[in-house]
């Protein structure tokens, strides 16, 4: 019983996260401004990372943990670059 | 000592990070220490301002405060969003003069403010210490200022 609940919960949370990613996608596509897209892009990364974690739980393996770690630590690099590009028109000065 | 261990706290954190990533074994402790020492040496090249921690004992209090605040804000923002965010007209910018000057302290403050749903660090003038924040639910402007000021004072106590 608890197993079923868990599996359902995993499925539900994955669906939630995919739906969240869908919302992010909407902002990425529609904008309206570049900053909206960047913001949504950053959120997409985080949501993907969470989805990964749920996937890890679902499959019972920690193989994907590093990927989540990398997203957490380095995922923001591209967002920083995007933000800086918006602000300064140049990523590295 | 300081030449060998320029950033002791950093080095220790890195060793802990290594052990968290791998496993708590003697081999990894040795390897992790070596790597952490190397990484700290690399940090010397960048010469960041060295934070001086004065009040270790206040850190748990800070963490607790943040934990609670974030939890509360989560609930608040969730309700705002779910209640139909686009009908409200309460968000706005708040300008707060800060006295905290320590860069590390300010960085932590920025992280706290921004991580807390509902408030965001927008702009900061290092010359006069004025901070512009954006607040999602701006019904009580002074209340927000107080919240932030409280963090500020705590951080000033820790770092200055």
């Amino acid at each position: 019983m608890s197993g079923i609940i868990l599996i359902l919960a995993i499925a539900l949370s994955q669906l939630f996260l995919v739906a969240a990613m869908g919302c992010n996608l909407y902002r990425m596509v529609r904008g309206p401004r570049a900053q909206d897209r960047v913001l949504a892009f950053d959120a997409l990364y985080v949501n993907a990372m969470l989805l990964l974690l749920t996937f890890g739980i679902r499959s019972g393996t920690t193989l994907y943990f590093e990927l989540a770690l990398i997203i957490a630590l380095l995922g923001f690099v591209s967002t920083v670059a995007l933000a800086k590009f918006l602000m300064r028109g140049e990523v590295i000065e | 000592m300081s030449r060998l261990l320029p950033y002791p706290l950093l080095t220790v954190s890195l060793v802990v990070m290594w052990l968290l990533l791998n496993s708590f074994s003697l081999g990894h402790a040795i390897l992790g220490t070596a790597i952490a020492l190397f990484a700290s040496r690399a940090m010397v090249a960048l010469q960041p301002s060295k934070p001086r921690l004065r009040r270790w004992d206040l850190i748990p209090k800070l963490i607790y405060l943040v934990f609670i605040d974030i939890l509360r804000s989560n609930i608040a923002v969730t309700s705002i969003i779910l209640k139909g965010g686009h009908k409200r007209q309460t968000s706005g910018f708040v300008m707060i003069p800060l006295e905290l000057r320590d860069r590390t302290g300010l960085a932590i403050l920025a992280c706290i403010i921004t991580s807390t749903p509902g408030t965001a660090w927008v702009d900061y003038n290092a010359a006069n210490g004025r901070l512009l924040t954006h607040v999602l639910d701006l019904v009580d402007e002074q209340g927000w200022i107080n919240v932030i000021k409280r963090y500020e004072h705590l951080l000033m106590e820790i770092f200055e």
Partner: protein
Amino acid sequence: MTHPSDLPAWAALLVAFFLVVGSGLTLTGAIGLLRLKSFYERMHAPTLGTTWGAGSILIASITCFSVLGSRPVLHEILITVFVLVTTPVTLMLLARAALYRDRAETNGNVPGFETVDSLGDEEGQP
């Protein structure tokens, strides 16, 4: 290789709870991104996901693997720390960039250039 269905009931329920809460918060944040009106408002939304959203899921993960592996698995703490440290950087940079862009285009009601920079304290509120 282990499987989550091997979890004891309490752990399974705990994991399930945190998972649903975490993803629910994240979804809420994403909906906020969708529904909130201005960029500065939308900016707050994803932090739901990066704080308690992520936190809950990470707790679920820690619980799950600690119980399965019958020893504490604490990798996830690192993820939490990293997310908490890096997300604000992005948001700060982005918010300031947006502010600049809106100012430069005199777009909407954003605080003027004077807000943080002025010598006097009085003016500058939107």
